[in-house]
């Protein structure tokens, strides 16, 4: 699966969506759209959030699924929360 780039490989600034296209009728929309906050997170953090939601928001279930201890998983979530807070303040 191709990874969605979220930061500029040249200057590391956040990237924006400038073009969207319909795969059915080839309509192309040009503009300048910000990426949703969750998509601005690194891929592994997005994967974690997806798994966390699918686990019913249970850290214990996540710990079992990832074969890691509860504090390890809780720290991953805390780091993601910190990243989201930073993105919201930018």
């Amino acid at each position, binding site marked *: 699966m191709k990874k969605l780039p979220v930061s500029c490989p040249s200057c590391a600034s956040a990237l924006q969506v400038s073009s969207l296209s319909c795969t059915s009728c080839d309509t192309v929309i040009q503009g300048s759209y910000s990426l949703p906050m969750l998509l601005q997170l690194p891929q*592994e953090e997005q994967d*974690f959030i997806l*798994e966390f939601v699918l686990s019913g928001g249970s850290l214990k279930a996540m710990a079992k699924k990832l074969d*890691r*201890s*509860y*504090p*390890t998983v809780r*720290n*991953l979530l805390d780091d993601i929360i910190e990243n989201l807070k930073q993105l919201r303040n930018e």
Partner: protein
Amino acid sequence: MNKIKKSNLLFNPFERFREQRLIIVGLIAAVVASLLGYFFNGRFDGALDLHFTHTVEIWEPFIDNLIAIFSLFLIFSIVAKILNPKTRFVDIFAISLIARLPLYLLTFSNFGNIQYEIGQALFLTVTEPARNIPMDAVILSVIFGALSILAAIWMITLLYNGLKLVSNSKGVKLIVGFIFALILAEALSKLIVYLIY
């Protein structure tokens, strides 16, 4: 999930294993180590201590371990809660039990009361300077000293990694908190040992 590093089982088992498993292993190890303490004349008379003596009563290593684990648990719980109020007591308990494993392994080094005998032989050369220093005792004491340092480093690393993980702390705050916890836990255990015996 690239962010989850391959766990370092020797120095940070807390990252990988669930607290129930760690507590069961830690409790079994504490009981076995207490029996080893009895057989090898070892006293765990402090949170970070193991000393060998002439004779040991069977109940003494059990009480020693109880005091040491309680002291580590109490002080590390207070420090971890200050660093991060979300820290769970059960995780601190697991750390207090598992971090003492290197110390337990050291009890084997007094097989046949050799460490105690060496200590006595070297002590006599200090109190009676006319005696020759037994070279074999010096060599063995250097080897045992090196083993003790390795065990101490391993134990302190386990405690540090455990506190870092369960409190999710970093930097100066963590280092200061850890040093404070280590000194206080040792002091508390020594005080309780002093009051009991």
